[in-house]
């Protein structure tokens, strides 16, 4: 009976078997990397908004504090996007006729709200609370990046669970004095040393509590 396979098949099959491990491994790595890429997470990708609102101009340029607009950030789980009336506090006087503000004025006149595109978006099974983070000394900049340098708002961080856990495991990397929470530029001289001190002072729960599933999922 003639041989079914040519002798070279020995080498090929060995290569396929051992190579397969690498190919599958590479594939898995690739899939994970793609999943972490901006393509999926939208990091630094701005979205079209009804008004091209510039945080850079309002925060860095005019020096308006975060809480002037995002009023509920310290109390609620949701850091609210301000009502049109907040915009109109200034824009009834300043840049009243600007073409750019037309949608705002229309909303103000008609009472029909603007629909902003959500930029920082979590799964429905994640229950994130702004209030407790802010009050426990996590600065805005830690998650949202240098908003004062963003012409158009975009995500600075991937907001993946891996990323959340990075801080929940070691919050001292990011804790800051409570009066510096809204400061975009503040940096500690020795973050880890300060973080450890603040962690004790704020009575932050140990990592095993902060990383238990029900902390965020219920």
């Amino acid at each position: 009976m003639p041989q079914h396979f040519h002798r070279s098949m020995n080498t090929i099959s060995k290569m396929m078997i051992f190579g397969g491990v690498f190919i599958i491994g590479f594939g898995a790595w690739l899939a994970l990397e793609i999943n972490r890429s901006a393509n999926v997470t939208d990091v630094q990708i701005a979205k079209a908004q009804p008004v091209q609102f510039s945080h850079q101009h309002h925060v860095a340029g005019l020096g308006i504090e975060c809480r002037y607009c995002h009023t509920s950030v310290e109390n609620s789980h949701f850091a609210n996007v301000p009502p049109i009336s907040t915009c109109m506090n200034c824009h009834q006087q300043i840049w009243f006729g600007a073409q750019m503000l037309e949608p705002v004025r229309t909303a103000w006149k008609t009472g029909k709200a603007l629909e902003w595109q959500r930029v920082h978006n979590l799964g429905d099974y994640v229950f994130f609370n702004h209030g407790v983070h802010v009050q426990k000394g996590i600065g805005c900049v830690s998650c949202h990046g240098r908003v004062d340098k963003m012409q158009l708002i975009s995500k600075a961080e991937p907001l993946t669970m891996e990323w959340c856990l990075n801080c929940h495991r070691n919050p001292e990397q990011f804790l800051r004095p409570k009066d510096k929470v809204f400061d975009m530029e503040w940096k500690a001289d020795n973050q880890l040393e300060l973080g450890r001190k603040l962690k004790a002072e704020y009575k932050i729960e140990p990592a095993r509590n902060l990383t238990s599933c029900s902390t965020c999922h219920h």
Partner: protein
Amino acid sequence: MSDNHQPLESLQAKLRNKTGREYWRGLEDIVSNPESHDAFSQEFPRQASLLGDALDRRHFLKIMGASFGLAGLTACSAYPEDKHIVPYVKAPEEIVPGKPLFFASSFTLGGVATGVLVESHMGRPTKIEGNPDHPASLGATDLFAQASILTLYDPDRSQTSRYYGDFRPYDTFLRDLRKHLEETKPKQGEGFRILTETITSPTLAGQIRKLLADYPKAMWHQFEPAGRDAAREGSKLAFGSYVETVYKFDKADVVVSLDADFLANGVGSVRYARDFSARRRARKGIKELSRLYMVECVPTATGTVADHRIAVKPSEVAAMANAIAVGLGVNTGKPAAAPSTHAKLVESIVKDLQASKGKSLFIVGDYQPAALHALAHAVNQALGNVGSTLVYTDSIEAEPTNQLESLKKLVADMNGGAVETLLILEGNPVYTAPADLDFAGALKKVKLAIHLSLYFDETSAQCHWHIPSTHPLESWGDARAFDGTITVQQPLIAPLYSDTKSPLEVLAAFGYQFNLSSYDVVRTFWQQNLNKLMTGASTPVNGAVPVSTGTASAPPPPPAGEGKVQVGQNGTGLLSDFDKVWRRAVHDGFLAASSFAPKTVTPGGNLAEAMSKLPAISGTEIAFRPDPTVYDGRFSNNGWLQETPKTRTKLTWDNAAIMSFKTAAAKGLKNEDVVTLSVNGRTVKGTVLIVPSHPDDSITAYLGYGRERAGVVGNKAGFNAYTLRTTGGLWSAGGVTVSATGETYRLACTQMHWEIEASEALRRRELVQTATLKEYLDHPAFAKTEFDDPKARKLTMFQPVDDYAAERYAWGMVIDLASCMACNACVVACTAENNIPVVGKEEVLRQREMHWMRIDQYYAGDIASADLEVHVQPVMCQHCEMAPCELVCPVAATTHSPEGINEMTYNRCVGTKYCANNCPYKVRRFNFLHYADYDTPSLKLGRNPDVTVRSRGVMEKCTYCIQRINAARIEAEKETRLILDGEVVTACQAVCPAEAIVFGNLNDKNSQISKLVAEPSNYGLLAELNVRPRTSYMAKVRNVNSELPQPKTTAAARKAEHGSHGEGDHGGSEHGATPSGEHKSESTSGPKAEPGKAEPSKAGH
């Protein structure tokens, strides 16, 4: 439940031979019928059958292949898709986006209000809680109030006005109405009739009276299907006028209830459950409990907590009442002829009542004849209870009347052509009116019939005009509570459908005020009548409720028309005196000082004559009762209520011809046989459901089923018992014939579902632990075993557990079995709080109901007797410290939090169901078929935004309301403090009228729960498995009359097992299995096995 058609004798014999357990769930337990038992012993039975019979190898491989191929897909979910943020244009005051607000409002059933607080998320009401300041609630509600949220968002609600069934705008109705009024006015309203249900609302009654003044010849009729005619007429018989009886159960040592389900049904039941259960808890230092004798003719919730429960035929209730009354020396004109089997009981009751004069209560149910109510008044007078355990007040109804007579007159006039215009304000008389009146036939003779109702129902279909009604959470109103407190009905949301009108608005239109809002109506009425409304007592009944400050001595309101001071939105303008009272009342939810003062009544009336007129009933009897979940049919379209297993019968989605085993056997019937029931020539087809503990030779039929136009949920479910109900026998009738049709009909009864099957552990300890008060006092720790000690480190195959004592919080729950009466309020509250889906009857039949908590029901006693003991036990996830479920999860979707909570992470679950298979308590629920409704827009509004809406293929279970814990934790963390005791209240705990559920931090030694856990009667369910459950139970201690036969308790059984624990045997146990000779020999194991003396903390070293 399937086939239990066995001779009674054999069942009895088997029970005697202890083939089954002492405490059994269904007949299968006793007969140990392997086949029927197996069907339910699997965690998820009947799965395989869904694949069909032709499951050959090829088919199997195909399915396996497809499953593997698709397995990966089920794990995929879309990355959070694009969403919008839509901020307000002008933000309303007080709303902080993301934070719920609570508003006081009221829930009205049968016309009577219970104060509630409604949780509102960004303007959407999502959950109802009791109003802690309201005397009828004290923070609790019943299941109907809980479920009314779903009714609000029910897509089947009527949304537009209709004329002859066709959609017409409301304006067209107003045009027609105006024309019609012009014709009616000159006739002074002759031929104009209004039909309402019971009305306690001062404003609504005021409006009707005003209308009647404008049309002097018009008439107002009332008919409440589950009405209280008997109680009303009874008071008239006794005192010559309609008075209300308000009970004070917290002051009663002995309560005798004759068919009065006062804990779960009827006026004030929520408050009464609180007062009653406060006297029922055996705790350290408490030597006395109150005692309840329950004589019932239908299965009631109250019967489950009774110390002595006797089941008699409906007609025998009168005999029992009479015998007790005669024994107490009340002249009833009848000899004491109680059923001879109960002679001893009657004697003991009489003795007990006489021994506690002034501290007892004799109560007759709303559905017993008026003469018995008069009898009860006479008995309570004779016992000196008036003024101490009960008070009389003015009737809380705006216009108390004999409603049956009122309806009869209306129908007679309709038939006589005297009714031209009929305005039906809510209610569904075509469906609910007594069958012999033929309301539908009479309605055809009315020239203009207008029906205001929430649904386009049976009555709407027969009326010319149908006006959709607003839900109570959409409109203003008011109503009185059981003690007369005027409760404000505050809307939480603008009407979902613009055409809907409240009764106040429709009545205003009849008074030519076509566009008056319900707010204006209520406020104006209050302003004009505040003096009258506030002349009530300044102290609420039982004195437990603090009266809001400043209003009790409010000066008289300004005269009508003057007080129109508008309160400036920004604090400008001065508040008028009325405004202060009004704002306070709206804020508090009720008008302070509006409850009725006790009233002095003069007994009179001829009791003997009334008693002699009681009809003689013979033959098999049928009792009609409002359904435990859908009431009189008004909640038929509410899926939450339909799926709630009914108290005592555990039936869902249907009603049935409920009868005892003996009766069924005598008639040759089995469970699920379809029978024809006929009473006086009226027949209906129903399905047999055998319920142990049901009285013999009697059938219970719940009303509210067999609806034609309830909506998609309620249509065609069950049979219409109203078709048998006539004016002569509203609540019971004799001479029923039952004949089998040969057909069968599946009933989705959950009694045998989720059965705890841990045979090894059960040999050590029954699931329900009971004792008589005497046994408890002799041996308080009767329920404990060495496994209840958290420190006992037994050999375990599990990895050693964390030391939870080092944590800030160790969450736990305690459930009091002595207080729980299975009213199901917790089950519905849990459904509302945790977005639990409704699965439907078919899925319930497959044991796939999703309720995170269930209420198990066990019987004890002789199967042949109707006087079985009934024990109920709420079971939800026990949050075991060494949880078996966690060990078998391949993806770590169920894990343990450092605080001891067994977490379920939905987004990680892949649906292997291993956890459920490994759970000894059977508390895990698997979402087989995408049960949650993701599509209906209105239902989306009602979901709790703090809880994930689970999808298909995911396991779920009780989380201890983790969202509430986290909310409290976040508030505490912000202030860098610990969560205080009582700050976290789970949904089931909050709603429980009997305060049977306590939740809290076990690491806080001063917390309420720590004190309960330290009680000797605390025990852990299946703690013998060494899973260390965090939920524990307080054993059921009953204050049994020592003169009567003693029940077999687990305490007595353990005593027999372990020998005597006390110095002398003064237990008085008549338990034959306690051989007196063995008492002194301390049996078997050492100190650990003697939990009687052991302080829990000392038991294991």
